[in-house]
């Protein structure tokens, strides 16, 4: 994708609130943006290091809980006599706490699985997500368990002109999601298009060879896990301050699946893949909602997924890229043929 196209897309996204007037449409866009950020973070692990994290929602949920708890304040009874108290903190501070805590969890999972790959990595991540969900469900003193954390302050709290109506709060949320999304995209892009990214791809393509030329694969796997987890945590924090209620259901497996589908269908290991996948699977359910019963809707959703995986196993973006390359080659070829046959004709005429 060339630079001009990128800037045009950014400009388009920035000007969306100029013509979008409907609260519901904002809601769809914001949720889509949040999950696309999640998908982007997953793509760093799955697409570039080749490790499938099926517990990715754990980082998302940890981000959501951390940001909520820090902004609401909490107290933690550590011993009989000592209680650790955190007063409510500003939302921006809570957001950074979410980044750090989920990043640390990513480091932990990355370290834990330093010698497991493939199926075993998948199992480690699933288990991690399940453990975190159980903690969130049962540590009622801290997380309120199934009663959920309520009244989480919105992102824009404290900014006067944004506290007015529900619509402008949505606009603020939209811009926050957009900003975080752009930063996340930039971070991932710079990482994967550098020496670091090559090391990650080397791990995916041929781990033994990577080691033999001096790539410390564990280091780069851990680095990818930290970055990926922190970005997923950011998405979770955005989610928490947007819907303003967080319960253990944020750890549902279906959210991980949604992110995996976005990455796989869009094209794993490409920068644009998760964006395209996020666009399709973020908007599609909303588009079909008006015309179909929920049951039919899920069937259509599933069928589309199967079709994409069946016909475009590499994902949409690589397929489009390949189609474009073939088309260009054919065009060059036919141009050459025409000029060649012209030349021949001239020779015959002579």
């Amino acid at each position, binding site marked *: 994708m060339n630079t001009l196209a990128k800037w045009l897309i950014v400009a388009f996204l920035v000007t969306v609130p100029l013509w979008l007037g409907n609260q519901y449409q904002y809601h769809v866009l914001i949720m889509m943006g949040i999950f696309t950020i999640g998908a982007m973070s997953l793509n760093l692990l799955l697409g570039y290091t080749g490790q499938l994290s099926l517990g990715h929602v754990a980082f998302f949920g940890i981000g959501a809980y951390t940001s909520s708890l820090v902004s609401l304040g909490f107290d933690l009874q550590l011993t009989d006599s000592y209680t650790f108290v955190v007063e409510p903190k500003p939302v921006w501070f809570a957001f950074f706490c979410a980044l750090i805590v989920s990043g640390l969890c990513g480091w932990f999972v990355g370290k834990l699985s330093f010698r497991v790959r493939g199926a075993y990595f998948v199992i480690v991540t699933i288990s991690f997500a399940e453990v975190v969900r159980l903690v969130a469900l049962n540590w009622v003193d801290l997380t309120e368990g199934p009663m959920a954390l309520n009244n989480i302050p919105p992102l824009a709290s404290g900014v006067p002109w944004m506290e007015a109506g529900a619509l402008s709060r949505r606009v603020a949320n939209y811009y926050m999601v957009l900003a975080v999304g752009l930063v996340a995209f930039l971070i991932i892009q710079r990482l994967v298009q550098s020496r670091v990214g*090559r090391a990650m*791809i080397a791990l995916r393509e041929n781990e033994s060879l990577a080691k033999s030329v001096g*790539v410390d694969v564990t280091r780069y796997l851990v680095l990818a896990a930290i970055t990926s987890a922190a970005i997923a945590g950011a998405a979770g924090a955005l989610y928490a301050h947007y819907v303003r209620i967080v319960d253990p259901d944020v750890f549902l497996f279906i959210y991980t699946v949604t992110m995996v589908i976005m990455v796989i269908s869009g094209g794993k290991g490409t920068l644009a893949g998760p964006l395209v996948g996020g666009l399709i699977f973020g908007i599609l359910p909303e588009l079909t909602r008006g015309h179909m019963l929920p049951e039919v809707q899920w069937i259509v959703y599933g069928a589309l997924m199967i079709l994409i995986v069946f016909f475009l196993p590499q994902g949409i973006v690589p397929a489009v890229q390949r189609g474009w390359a073939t088309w260009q080659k054919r065009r060059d070829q036919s141009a050459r043929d025409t000029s060649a046959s012209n030349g021949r004709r001239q020779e015959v005429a002579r």
Partner: protein
Amino acid sequence: MTLHMTTPATTRQTVLTVDNLAVHFGGLVAISDASFKVDEGEVVSLIGPNGAGKTTAFNVISGFLAATKGVVAYKGRRLNGLKPHQIADAGLVRTFQKTSVFGNDTVIDNIMIGLHRRGDASIWQTLLLTPKVRRQEQALREAAAEILDFVGLGHRSNELAGALAYGEQRLLEVAVALAAKPSLLLLDEPACGMNPTEALNFRNLLGEIGRKKITVLLVEHNMRMVMGVSDRVVVLNHGRIIADGPPTEIQQNPEVIRAYLGHGPKHA
């Protein structure tokens, strides 16, 4: 045919020493007791019938396998217990018996991965895309193109590595290893599967590598190549070293002939 100059042995310094190496897989003894050394700038071939333990020895030296007993040292530094990437950092870089490239990457990107050790941009510099990072990236790309020209794959740089012909993939493997700037290159059957022309070109390339002052430890079945390029040949049989000496001497060694060369017409 001598492809490179043999300097007098007295001026050479021993770089790699393998002392009383033993490798057991459970009850199976892959290497029972092997000691040999490689001097700086030498081309040493490790030969022996299939299953003699050559690749096992390679795996131990390069850190992919732990030795049951014995010491491997490079330039006075003990390698036992180091991870493969640390051993690569020490200057020992290996290739693999089975063709091993980054198949879904372009040829030039394969080399760029091989050049990993030559970059040193920190993660923050990378994220900020500082001028230093850009310069380094540019320098690496030029170095990669140079290496491709050196092995004669310059015209293929934008193809996918997996789409190359077999012989070219084997060349690429060596190029990736060279990119990692080895002082000792461990080549595991690099000419296996090459046609005679490719093998001849490869032999010339080995000569070029020798001229770059890179020490080479070679495992190879192509006797014509082994006898042509080696300064010294180490013969392994049933996990034991049965001979160690210059090619001409090895060819006359009755035990080697019995174990290895005795069953057919002499090749060299």
